[in-house]
């Protein structure tokens, strides 16, 4: 039975951000791919990676990737879960897992990048 | 059995019913019953437009509109009512606009208008007797005027919180002496019979197109309202006047609106001639519908039609010479029909068309306030109202002009609503007879338990085909006489009908059986009216009496059922401003 749920629980900000982060990611992810994987040596050897890790530009680049990528991916995932009707408890748990894992992996990644 | 009580009951959620419902003031209970969900009513099929002398595009006046309507009606329309309608038209359209109806617009942002069959103005406005030429009087919304009007009215009903009983089939009127005390209806979803007790009942049940084989009407257009009245001993007026619209899609009857000709489309025979030039030299293809339909049939009879794959005939409606923008912007829907159903590309080739049963000029006799009357002295039936195509006010007389029906709905729907609002203030509920639902219950019972051999579908097809053949565009005495005995035998066979579905849930088999009863009830007065009227007037064309006969026949017919057989009476026509003249275009 249809029930009108909530009023103006605006989804606008997350919807706009999902799109902006997506557009950012086009540059970031495809750029990342070309730099890291097009040439095996530049992505797969410690020296080459370390060299880039010391440059502020690439530091920023990687930080952006991690932050924006995680946010976009997890917000997208949460969006998927929201599509399926669940009991509030279940949906709260999933929301919790998403947020916690997001923070945990963000810290992990930032720690890696900033340790150089 | 469930009994409800409402101050007002409106049967039918088409344009007329919904417009009336909007007039019931707060504080009074009102319910609208409809056998289909309200927006599925057939008003939604109207395409071309709604007439009013707004004068947004060309100089116009309600008096010219009135003249056209009177002339179009072949002088059988009641001029008092026609005056009311055409005078009120502009206000009514503007009211629709204020309700939110999305109209097409002129460059200045006013409601756009276009030409339509039979709507004219004097070429020289200072001289009303000068030659009449086509005028832009039809207000429209592309070619979906009825659709947006129906939706706008329904939307306003939601806004006003009107109560709907959707998919309820009304089976009977409850008469308490000369007073209507309510109705009996069946909830289609459960087959349960409900009694609705009311102070006032309005019938706005639409037309009966499905009496004929080729029709532009919906499957739901089975004339239930006519049958309700007829079976309660009340008269039906001018039933012989059946409008055949000239341009139905060949074989299917789906309507190609007059708007196609209003925008410049022309009719062609198999010689490529624009034959309407011969039948109506001034307005040509925009002559009134009865004339164009007869012209098409005459062309076909004289061998100038096209023969189709199944042996039936058609002529061509050509819009291919019109600019593509006109076709796309102003006629998208109807050209779409040609594409979808016949596989014809109207921008390139002509559309095969044939006349199609379209509109009931006759119906339940009412006053201009939609009060149902029961005899030639216009004695009112207290508490009973009718409006829309089911009613006969009569503004359309012997032939309706395009765009005048939608206008009829909103003008007389509103007036009826207002009259009801006044009536219920000082009226109490009439007592409910104990056996109110008896007839309905026994009818349902009989159909459900019958072991007869007749099938609904077959019997209906037989009726439709015979009506088409013998009571169609051209009629004559021998055909009609034959039809009177034919209808008797069809009625007898109907008593022997049986259905497959014995369930209670959404039993459309049962509904169709009851609807067939309505079709038979409606066909009878059509046939009798056509038989008694020994003249040709408007849509009624007798081969044996080819001329109009004002001396004997400038009067309405009233047909009653008495002791099971139809009886005829007559009523005078109100003539106020325009004396009958020969009808030439």
């Amino acid at each position, binding site marked *: 039975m249809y029930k009108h749920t909530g009023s103006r629980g605006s989804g606008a900000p997350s919807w706009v951000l999902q799109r902006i982060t997506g557009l950012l990611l086009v540059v970031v992810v495809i750029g990342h791919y070309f730099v890291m994987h097009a040439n095996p040596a530049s992505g797969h050897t410690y020296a080459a990676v370390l060299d880039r890790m010391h440059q502020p530009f690439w530091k920023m680049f990687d930080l952006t990737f991690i932050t924006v990528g995680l946010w976009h991916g997890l917000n997208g995932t949460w969006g998927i879960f929201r599509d399926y009707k669940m009991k509030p408890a279940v949906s709260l748990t999933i929301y919790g897992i998403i947020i916690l894992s997001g923070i945990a992996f963000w810290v992990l990644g930032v720690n890696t990048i900033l340790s150089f | 059995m469930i009994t409800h009580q409402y101050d007002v009951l409106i049967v039918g959620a088409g344009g007329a019913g919904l417009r009336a419902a909007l007039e019931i003031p707060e504080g009074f209970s009102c319910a609208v019953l409809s056998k289909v969900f309200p927006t599925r009513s057939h008003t939604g099929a109207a395409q071309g437009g709604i007439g009013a002398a707004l004068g947004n595009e060309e100089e116009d006046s309600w008096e010219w509109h009135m003249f056209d309507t009177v002339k179009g009606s072949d002088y059988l329309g009641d001029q008092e009512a026609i005056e009311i309608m055409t005078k009120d038209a502009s206000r009514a359209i503007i009211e629709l606009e204020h309700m939110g109806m999305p109209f097409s617009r002129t460059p200045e942002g006013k409601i756009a208008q276009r030409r339509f069959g039979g709507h004219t103005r004097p070429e020289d406005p200072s001289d009303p007797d000068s030659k009449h030429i086509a005028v832009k009087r039809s207000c429209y919304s592309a070619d979906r005027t009825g659709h947006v009007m129906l939706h706008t009215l329904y939307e306003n009903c939601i806004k006003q919180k009107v109560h709907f009983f959707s998919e309820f089939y009304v089976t009977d009127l409850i008469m308490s002496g000369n007073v209507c005390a309510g109705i009996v209806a069946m909830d289609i979803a459960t087959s349960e019979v409900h009694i609705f007790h009311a102070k006032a009942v309005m019938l706005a049940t639409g037309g009966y197109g499905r009496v004929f084989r080729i029709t532009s009407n919906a499957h739901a257009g089975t004339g239930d309202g006519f049958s309700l009245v007829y079976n309660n001993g009340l008269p039906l007026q001018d039933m012989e006047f059946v409008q055949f619209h000239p341009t139905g899609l060949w074989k299917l009857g789906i309507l190609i609106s007059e708007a196609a000709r209003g925008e410049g489309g022309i009719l062609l025979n198999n010689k490529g001639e624009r034959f309407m030039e011969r039948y109506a030299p001034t307005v040509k293809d925009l002559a009134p519908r009865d004339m164009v339909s007869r012209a098409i049939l005459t062309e076909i009879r004289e061998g100038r039609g096209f023969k189709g794959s199944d042996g039936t005939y058609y002529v061509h409606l050509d819009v291919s010479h019109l600019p593509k923008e006109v076709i796309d912007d102003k006629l998208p829907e109807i050209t779409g029909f040609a594409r*979808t159903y016949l596989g014809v590309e109207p921008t390139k080739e002509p559309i095969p068309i044939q006349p199609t049963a379209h509109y009931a000029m006759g119906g339940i006799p009412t006053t201009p306030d939609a009060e149902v009357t029961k005899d030639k002295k216009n004695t009112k039936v207290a508490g009973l109202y009718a409006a829309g195509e089911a009613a006969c006010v009569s503004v359309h007389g012997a032939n309706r002009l395009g765009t005048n029906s939608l206008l009829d709905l909103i003008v007389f729907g509103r007036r009826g609503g207002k009259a009801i609002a006044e009536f219920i203030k000082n009226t109490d509920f009439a007592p409910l007879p104990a056996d109110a639902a008896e007839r309905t219950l026994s009818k349902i019972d009989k159909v459900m338990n019958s072991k007869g051999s007749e099938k609904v579908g077959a019997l209906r097809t037989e009726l439709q085909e015979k009506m088409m053949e013998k009571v169609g565009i051209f009629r004559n005495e021998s055909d009609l006489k034959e039809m009177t005995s034919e209808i008797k035998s069809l009625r007898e066979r109907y008593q022997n009908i049986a259905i*497959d579905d014995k369930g209670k849930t959404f039993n459309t*088999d049962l509904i169709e059986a009851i609807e067939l009863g309505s079709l038979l009830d409606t066909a009878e007065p059509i046939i009798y009216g056509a038989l008694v009227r020994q003249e040709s007037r408007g849509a009624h064309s007798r081969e044996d009496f080819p001329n109009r006969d004002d001396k004997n026949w400038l009067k309405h017919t009233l047909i009653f059922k008495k002791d099971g057989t139809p009886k005829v009476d007559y009523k005078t026509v109100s003539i106020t401003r325009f004396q009958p003249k020969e009808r030439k275009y």
Partner: protein
Amino acid sequence: MKVTLRIQRYNPEKDSEPYYQEFVLEAGDEKERILDLLHQAKWKHDGTLTFRRSCAHGVCGSDGIRINGRNRLACSTLLRDVNYKKPIVIEPLPSMPIVKDLIVDMSDFYKKYEAVKPYLINNAPPPEHERLQSNEDAEMLFESAKCILCACCTTSCPSSWSDENYIGPAALLKAYRFVFDTRDDAGDERLDVVDTPDGAWRCHTIFNCVEACPKEINITWHISQMKKRLAQREM
């Protein structure tokens, strides 16, 4: 020409589960409507076959059903639009409660329609004449005003399959119809209704609705205009 309809049947008074029944029917040519064939099945073979219909030419919206897996109107789908060499599968609209055979309970659909306040709200006293509106502004509404409430769109939308509370494309289209009407004053009030996770934001531009709409309305475009309006309002 013989064609076979494979029709999903369900009678709540007898059956616990829907099942399929095949009808072998006689079709004149490939311009025959599916509705004509359903009628043939009902009138000549089995009177208990139940479906809604009225206008028979795609203007009333009664006969939305699923034909060979997609939502369409029985009266606007001709034989030549489907592969009639194989049995044509006829089912009720998906994800709706089945009342009987091809008839579904539409009350939820109508409730969603009513939820968006589908009527013009303008509290200013009306002028004596029509409210002026440019033809361009009027035409902005025409496509959305074509809707016949057949529910083909909403019941084809994957978002509505997984969440019955999703207001659905038809209601969103109706909201557009009034939000973008220059004569309407209730923009905010109505936008609030669709500005929820169950409202416009649940549309993932899947286009099933557009694909299904028999009136060829580009519903997704209309929803996108509304999303933009909602986003602008929020920023």
